[in-house]
């Protein structure tokens, strides 16, 4: 995956838990443009470990002068966000991948309805910037629990078609009302916790929306798993995956050749065949089919884990 070293030029607290980071090329070179919804992978050298997390870009897609991301500190997470919050300072350089978009706007839409929950607002910010520039019709609904935690409020302009819903203040997002009055040809994009995405899908189904008009991105922050062991069929070696490590990271540490791109269970690049499995694969991806999940014949090492006696993979 192509990437370059970029310098951290700004860090700003958007809320007690969320920081905005801006990256620029140290030599002032223009960065590749992108499309709203794209993410970059940030590499964080943390002791012996190289962490890699995917973050949605929140800056203007047509502005090549820098990239911006917003990182929520997840104390229960795998540590990438904690590293960004505590170890990264202005002036540091980090390796940042070229943007990739797995959550892009549907150019055919007559209108776009963007729904975000919590930190799921991040890809929607860049989509909004793109829509503003193209002068397309859209509306945004952003849901957060507490005003003090709602980092998105700092990033959203005050416009009549941009709505915030703070549940703690009694303003809960009413999906039925949002989806019921949209013109034909509207597309809906949801980013946030899995529960929100399911709720939007169910509500849209009830109202008879065509499935092709719904788009979503779950921000997979896989919970820190237990350690587990994996045997590699090609070399016979056994690799231990630490509790805060992904199988992909463990394979890379063991210098096993493996392709990857999104590191978030969506792109399919790291797909690996399972040779034998005595136990249960914890599939956390959005790539494999239900059949592939239940048959336990494939695993996506970037997000999925294993519990049981023995897992042999084709690597």
């Amino acid at each position, binding site marked *: 995956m*192509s990437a370059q070293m970029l310098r951290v030029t700004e860090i700003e607290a958007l809320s007690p838990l969320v920081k905005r980071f801006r990256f620029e090329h140290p030599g002032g070179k223009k960065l*590749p443009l*992108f499309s709203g919804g794209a993410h970059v992978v940030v590499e964080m050298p943390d002791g012996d470990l190289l962490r890699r997390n995917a973050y949605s870009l929140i800056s203007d897609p047509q502005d090549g002068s820098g990239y911006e991301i917003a990182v929520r500190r997840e104390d229960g997470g795998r540590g990438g966000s904690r590293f960004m919050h505590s170890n990264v300072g202005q002036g540091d350089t980090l390796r940042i991948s*070229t943007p990739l978009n797995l959550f*892009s706007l549907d*150019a055919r839409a007559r209108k776009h309805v963007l729904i975000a929950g919590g930190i799921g607002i991040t890809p929607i910010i860049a989509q909004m910037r793109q829509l503003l520039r193209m002068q397309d019709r859209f509306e945004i609904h952003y849901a957060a629990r507490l005003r003090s935690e709602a980092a998105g409020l700092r990033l959203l302009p005050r416009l009549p078609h941009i709505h915030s819903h703070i549940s703690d203040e009694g303003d809960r997002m009413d999906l039925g009302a949002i989806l019921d009055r949209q013109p034909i040809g509207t597309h809906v994009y949801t980013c946030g916790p899995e529960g929100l995405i399911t709720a939007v899908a169910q509500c849209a189904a009830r109202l008879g929306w065509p499935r092709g008009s719904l788009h979503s991105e779950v921000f997979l922050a896989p919970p820190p798993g237990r350690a587990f062991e994996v045997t590699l069929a090609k070399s016979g070696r056994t690799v231990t995956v630490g509790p805060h490590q992904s199988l992909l990271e463990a394979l890379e540490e063991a210098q096993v050749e493996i392709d990857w*791109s999104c590191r978030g269970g969506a792109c399919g*690049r790291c797909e690996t065949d399972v040779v034998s499995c005595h136990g249960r694969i914890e599939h956390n991806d959005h790539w494999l089919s239900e059949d592939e999940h239940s048959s336990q014949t494939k695993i996506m090492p970037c997000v999925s884990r294993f519990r049981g006696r023995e897992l042999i993979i084709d690597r």
Partner: protein
Amino acid sequence: MTIQFNDETFRDDYSYHNSPAAIRRFPFPFDKDDYMYAVNMEPHGSGRAGSPFENRFDVDEHYVAEMRDREITLKEDPLRCQSLPHMELAGWDLLELIMEAKSEDYPELFSLHRDGDRWHWINRPLGIDHKFTFLDPTTLPYGPMEYITRQAQGDFAVLDQRDGNLWMEAGMVTSQADWSLDFDIGMNFFEWHAPVPLAHEMGIFQRALKFLLAIQQDAPSRRLNWTMTVNPRLDTSPENYHKWGPEKRTLTPENTGEKQYLRVELQTFFRLPRSNGLAFPIRCYLISLQDLVTVPKWGRRLHRVIRDLPDELAEYKGFTVNRPLIVEYLSRFDDGKPTSPGIFPDE
């Protein structure tokens, strides 16, 4: 580098020809003595110097004549160029990609000067000197995709990416191996590949699609495809089958070396930044068998490939009728000696 552009035709009197240098740099597609479909993608953009893989978009001695041939085909059939309304942004992406690449890789032929959205494009071989406003279609004589692909060799499919698939929703297709943009427009990756034999069952398309969906900017890739064409004709479209189909029957043992061409497609894949679309240029290279066998390795190898090719592939590629003649001709250049690995001629 100076390129001497050929004065030649791809129809009627078929005066198309390859210089000795063009023969040496021909993109011979076989890296071993047999052929079967495979997920044969590799990185593109900095291949061997002098080869068609050196630059993102290869410009060669056929450039001017090919652009003239495209103009004729388009005049007869404007539906060879189509772009659904939502693909305009992707068209601008493609225009920028080609202008940037050509002006960087061939500065004596092409220049691009940018002052914000005010662009100045000079294409010396075609005598074009044009100032326009980027993203403002009223400042160009055609839509952005049509404008730039009238100045770029090869066909272009521009794909929209959504719902985990690619959709053929824009293109400029005047030099195709018997498929139709007008028929395929709006189809997805599996739909437009439906006629291809064997590859679906081999899981090739499923894997290829996964790869394409994750292609990043700055990391284009390529693959080679091939077929056989009688006479150096670019427009072998289903629309004009009545013009070129009967020509297959004109092959004789005496004229095979001269009239039978190996047709190679250099297919490349580029992620487009603003639209998140995918550009799929399909550049067609033609070489007569008599020119091809001047490289002994290629003569030997092509004989073996065509002789042993699975019948389904020869049938799909449309040269079953002429296969015996081709094998008989090529067998004269195969002394049975081993061939070296890779596609390039031996030194």
